[in-house]
């Protein structure tokens, strides 16, 4: 019985245990509706016993033609669609897209808007990291307790988003040359209150999780991603930094006003799941620092460049690539203008997608149980992977 024959016959046979002459091999199709693939994602896994000998990620189940849609409509019309890329962090998606268009058009962003972008961006990072760590431990089988702890904090942040932008997840907040609405002083006070509570949450979370013996045994030394492989595969974000590579676009590009803030970039040294998990927690703490500084320094002023045209503008022919350090890694938008009202080419560089490409390298030789863990530590959102 060969491997391909098994797949064609599907379920018509008894569980296909394929003998390749080196022990029993079992082909399992994990997904697309497996409970821990974080959406509709499939992995064709070949197992020897419970050990992975081959893993092929299959995605595209959530493909929505995002990039082609972007070419068929005006620049502004794509902005709400970017919310749907990584639906956990819509605000950073907005930001990257706005940055790309601003580069293309050559627009300035007022001071206050920059501060607001930093605030909402870092809030997004906080809730994304909390959530991804929670989901990671949910994948480990912790029946949801850490996840719900993370959700509690995320809920407060989503409430903030709702009161600022009118939507909890699909915020659609940024515009080319600023932000859509200004934040009221009351909102800023509310943010200050929430941010003041965050260090306590981080401490609690860390105390709850980091020294748990089972967690350490499950994560340390699992899914090691060597720095060279990470760099050559284009992996970015916390995953890359967990492998020990100092690359944070906030530090590299100095986009926005990030060079005004004092924050550090935590680096891992093993590149395993535990490092990725810890790097996220440490980055969460750094984000809190940035938030505190931004909330202290935010100036008054307009949130929109008064000269900016939001609608019906026709950028000069040319191209621009705007990228930011999204919570999951480098999120970039590449736009080519041919002088019309629509982009000629609209391309997204999604961090989840690129980070996912090294999945097999990390999983080989590990157990089924580790695969879901490693997948969780990559922190993917299928909306972004499939676009």
């Amino acid at each position: 019985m060969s491997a391909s024959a098994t797949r064609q016959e599907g379920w018509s046979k008894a569980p296909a245990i394929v003998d390749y002459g080196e022990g029993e091999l079992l082909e399992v199709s994990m997904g697309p509706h497996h409970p821990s693939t974080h959406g509709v994602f499939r992995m064709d896994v070949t197992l020897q016993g419970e050990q992975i000998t081959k893993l092929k990620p299959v995605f595209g189940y959530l493909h929505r033609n995002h990039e082609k849609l972007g070419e068929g409509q005006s620049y502004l019309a794509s902005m709400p669609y970017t919310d749907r890329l990584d639906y956990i962090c819509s605000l950073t998606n907005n930001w990257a897209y706005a940055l790309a268009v601003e580069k293309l058009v050559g627009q300035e962003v007022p001071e206050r808007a920059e501060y607001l972008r930093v605030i909402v961006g870092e809030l997004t990072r906080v809730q994304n990291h909390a959530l991804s760590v929670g989901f990671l431990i949910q994948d480990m089988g912790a029946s949801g307790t850490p996840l719900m702890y993370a959700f509690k904090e995320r809920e407060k942040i989503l409430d903030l988003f709702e009161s600022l932008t009118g939507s909890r997840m699909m915020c659609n907040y940024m515009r080319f040359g600023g932000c859509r609405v200004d934040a009221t002083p009351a909102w800023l006070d509310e943010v200050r209150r929430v941010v003041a509570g965050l260090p306590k949450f981080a401490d609690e979370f860390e105390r709850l999780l980091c020294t748990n013996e089972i967690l350490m045994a499950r994560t340390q030394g699992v899914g090691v991603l060597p720095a060279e492989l990470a760099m050559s595969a284009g992996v970015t974000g916390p995953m890359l930094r967990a492998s020990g590579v100092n690359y944070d676009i906030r530090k590299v590009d100095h986009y926005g006003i990030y060079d005004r803030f004092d924050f550090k970039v935590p680096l891992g040294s093993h590149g395993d799941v535990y490092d990725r998990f810890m790097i996220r927690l440490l980055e969460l703490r750094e984000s809190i620092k940035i938030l505190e500084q931004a909330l202290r320094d935010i100036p008054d002023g307009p949130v929109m460049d008064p000269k900016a045209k939001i609608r019906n503008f026709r950028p000069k022919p040319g191209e621009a690539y705007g990228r930011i350090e999204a919570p999951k890694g480098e999120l970039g938008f590449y736009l080519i203008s041919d002088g019309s009202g629509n982009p000629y080419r609209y391309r997204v560089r999604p961090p989840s997608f690129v980070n996912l490409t090294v999945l097999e390298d990390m999983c080989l030789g590990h157990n089924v149980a580790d695969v879901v863990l490693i997948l969780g530590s990559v922190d993917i959102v299928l909306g972004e992977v499939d676009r």
Partner: protein
Amino acid sequence: MSIAFVVLALLTLAGAMAAVTLRNLVHCALALAVAFAGLALLFLQLDAQFVGFTQILVYVGAVAILVVFAILLTRGADDGKAGTVFSRTWLAGLGIAAAVFALLGWAVLRSVRGLAQAAGTPAVTVENIGQALMSRYVLPLEIVALLLTAALVGAVIVAMYEKEGAR
């Protein structure tokens, strides 16, 4: 000849029959478990409580599971091949078995008159068994323990993967 005995005997024999005749190997193993359970109940009927429970614990809980595992680990070779599950010499085997049964049955039936009538229920407690194991039968017990250890080690070594250089 109580009804319970007939039922249990039929259950045991049916399980045994199924265990050696069914096509599907896992079904064979499950039928074997049924036969073992039936036997255990027969032991209970014979007032051998301890042996009956040991029978369930060892045979249903361990041997049947072992057989099932072995079947799963050795599948692939026999799967999908149509044809008989019986060996080339099945007729001779069946003949021998029938002859053996005829002989045994003849012997039993011939000696019915000489067989003992039902004695009173022997008052055997687990404590008796334990005392006996530790006094009269202590040497066999030790030997069995040694044998089990040797078998454990042997089975592990025999069944271990032969990987060059590994482990």
